[in-house]
Structure formats: C-alpha cells, structure tokens
C-alpha cells in the first residue's frame, strides 16, 4: 500500500507562501479590475445607445462562451509577444504574471457585469428619478445614487464570485507560473510526493474558500437583518 509521507511540506512552506502571494495578487487585481470594467460593461449594456448595448452584450456572451483556460492560454501566448513588440522589451522580461492578471480581469468582467446589471436593475426607478429631479446629470445620478445601492445589494454575489475567482487562479499552471497550486505541484514533482502535495494544496484551498463562504453568509444575514 502507498505510504503517505508529509515530510517534504515543512521545508517547502516558504516557496508555497510565495505561490500563495501570487495567487492572491492575481485574485485581488482581477477583482478590482473586473468589477470596474464589469460595471462599465453593465452601464453600456443598459444604455439607450444601441451600439454600446450591442457591444457589451457581444463581449459578455463571448467571454461566457469560451473556457477560461483557453482565454488564459491565449493571453500567455499572444499578449506577451505583442507587448514586447509594442514596448520594445527584451525577451527576458517575464510578462506571465501581467498577462494572467489581464486575462483574468477581462474574463471576470463578463461575469461581474451581469451581477452589476442585476444590481442596477434592483434599484427602483424612483431613485434615479429623484436624483434627476434634484438636477443631477444622468451619469451623476448613476454614480452617486444608483451604483452605491446596486453595489451594496450585490455585495454577497460579488464576494461569492471572488471566491470562485480565487480557485480559478490555479489555472495559471498552464503558463508554468508558480502560483500556490503550481508551487505545490512543482514541489511534489521534485520530491516524488505529488499525492501528498496535491492533497495538502486541496486542503488549503478548501479551508480558505469555505471560511470565506461562511463569512459571506454571515455578512449576508447581517445585511438582511
């Protein structure tokens, strides 16, 4: 029978922590940029200007119809070359992290835009009318009155999406970028302890994500109260 041997974990912790930092970095950047771009997409989609609305609809359905892993691969293969050519960087510059962030942000924006669109529609029309009646311009009314409420109404969903995003960051392994999962894989491979390392990595993801989900649920209850 296979004997589990956890002895390679303690020594690998600093390396794994480096990986975790990369995972968190990608997650945070993708959340911030994804919500920002997603909100703009939602506004475009709800806009009375048909061209804007069609553009946003196309973007969202495109990104929701391709597997994330392919989007990431595309960004790893194409974007770095493109950036190097445009910016004249040397081939030694490692753009994998930057391309991962861009890829995730653009992909997640499609999902965040749907959440924000539902959020904007959850705010009653009377609120926007009241803001307009006070002399606000339409974008001012959106920014000062509707969006803060939409954001608050949708916070639990936005956070849940963030948890999913954190798990999805493990897909950057396709670029051999050492995020937490990638780091664990490398250590396991090196020491011939892949099973233990993958179990350990899975347990860490489980603890972080279930704790975060629990926090979101509690927060949601407090919001409802």
């Amino acid at each position, binding site marked *: 029978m296979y004997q589990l041997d956890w002895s390679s974990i303690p020594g690998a912790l600093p390396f794994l922590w480096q990986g975790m930092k990369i995972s968190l970095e990608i997650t945070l950047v993708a959340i911030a940029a994804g919500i920002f771009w997603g909100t703009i997409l939602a506004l475009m989609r709800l806009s009375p200007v048909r061209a804007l609305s069609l553009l946003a609809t196309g973007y969202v359905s495109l990104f929701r119809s391709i597997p994330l892993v392919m989007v990431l691969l595309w960004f790893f293969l194409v974007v770095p070359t493109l950036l190097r050519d445009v910016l004249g960087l040397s081939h030694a510059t490692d753009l994998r992290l930057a391309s991962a962030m861009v890829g995730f942000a653009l992909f997640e924006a499609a999902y965040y835009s749907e959440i924000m669109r539902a959020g904007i529609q959850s705010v009653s029309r009377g609120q926007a009318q009241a803001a307009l009646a006070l002399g*606000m311009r339409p974008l001012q009314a959106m920014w000062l009155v509707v969006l803060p409420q939409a954001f608050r109404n949708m916070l639990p969903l936005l956070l849940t999406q963030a948890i999913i995003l954190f798990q999805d960051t493990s897909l950057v392994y396709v670029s051999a970028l050492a995020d937490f999962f990638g780091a664990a894989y490398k250590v396991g491979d090196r020491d011939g302890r892949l099973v233990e390392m993958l179990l350990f990595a899975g347990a860490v993801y489980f603890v972080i994500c279930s704790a975060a989900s629990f926090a979101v649920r509690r927060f949601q209850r407090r919001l409802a109260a």
Partner: protein
Amino acid sequence: MISIRDVHKSYGTVEVLSGCSTEVKKGEVIVVCGPSGSGKSTLIKCVNGLEPIQSGEIVVDGISVAARRTNLPKLRARVGMVFQHFELFPHLKVIDNLTLAQRKVLGRREEEARARAFSLLDRVGLREHAHKHPGELSGGQQQRVAIARSLALDPICMLFDEPTSALDPEMINEVLDVMVALARDGMTMIVVTHEMGFARRVAHRIVFMDRGKIVEDAPTADFFAAPKTDRARQFLSKILQH
C-alpha cells in the same frame, strides 16, 4: 411662472395626456385631482421633464422644458419635486440626503450646505434625526425630509406627486402641515392629491383631470360649491361621502 399649453403625451398607442393647458402664476397653489389613471402624475412629471411630451409646450420661468437646447438638469435643480414613495437615498444619512445635491449640483461648500440643511430640518422639525438613515424614520418623517431635501436647492416652485398617498392616516397631517406652511410662505406649488381638506384650505385653484384631459380648472371655492361638469360632481360626491 409655469405655463402648460396643449400638451399631448402617449405611451405607444395609449394617449395619457390629450391636450392639457393651464397656467400657474408665481405664488399660486394648484391642486390637481381626479380619478386614478387620469394622467395627474404624468402631467406634473412633464413639468420638470422627467417624462417627455410628444407635442405642445411647457414653459417654466421662461424656459421651454421640451426644447432641445434646454439644460434640463439646470432647470430641474430649480424645480423641487416630492414623490409618493419619498425616494430618499437609503444609503445616505438624512443630513447627507439634504447636502448631496447642494454640493454636487449647485457646487455649494460642505459647511454652507450643512447650514442650509440644518435650518430646513429645523423647519420640518427633524433636526435631531439628522444622523439617522432614512430607513429608521417613519413614513411621515421621511416625507418631511424629502420636502426639506427639495427645498435645500432653493427652488422657484414645488411639484408634489401624491405626497401623502403612501402614508398611514395618522402621519398624513404632519406632512400636510409642512405643505400648508410652505404655501402660506408664498411658494408656487402644484400638488397632485386626494386630500380635499388640504385643497380647500390652501389651493387657489383646482384642476380636475379625467382620462388625460383637464375637464375643469376653477377657483377653489367655485369648484367645491358648484362643479361645472358631471364627472367632477361624481368624483366629489364619492370622495366626500364620508
């Protein structure tokens, strides 16, 4: 001050306003009444351009509301509006509800806006609630805050869209009292309401609407003493039965 001339408006094929005309002079209080669905609310939402019109003209203080070159936000800032469901901003404290548009629309400084807000909260008797959120107030209190929020921009006239219809009976009077005081101070007001007691006390004229038309436009005393049309007579007898 407000002139409404032959205004037509339809949603698709349904005409909701068919040729409405009336004039409101400075300092005048007009009560608009009529059965539900008669177009009362739509009419006053046309006055500040919240609802577009298809034909006719509405002029407020010399500015044509529907004209393409009109700066609607600027005009709206000078026309106060109070809604049936208050529409206070729930994510902001009462005081911030009162200062938001003063700062962002009129460009007043924070201290100036707060001073104006507190003096208006005093006027509607709610200074001690300044730091609560709207959700913590009763309906009557919320509507008084909403009136104060509109007044904070120093409007030249006020539009009220059924301001007491969503209130419990015991809260109606606290709101009407504020409106009576406002009328006595000489504010130009168009009030859509079913409160006939209020109409009798403060309105100079009653505009009675039915099916998108203004069927009667008469001085208050005349309207209540001898309505000229059958529709108005029926309406009054129903509403004043008890």
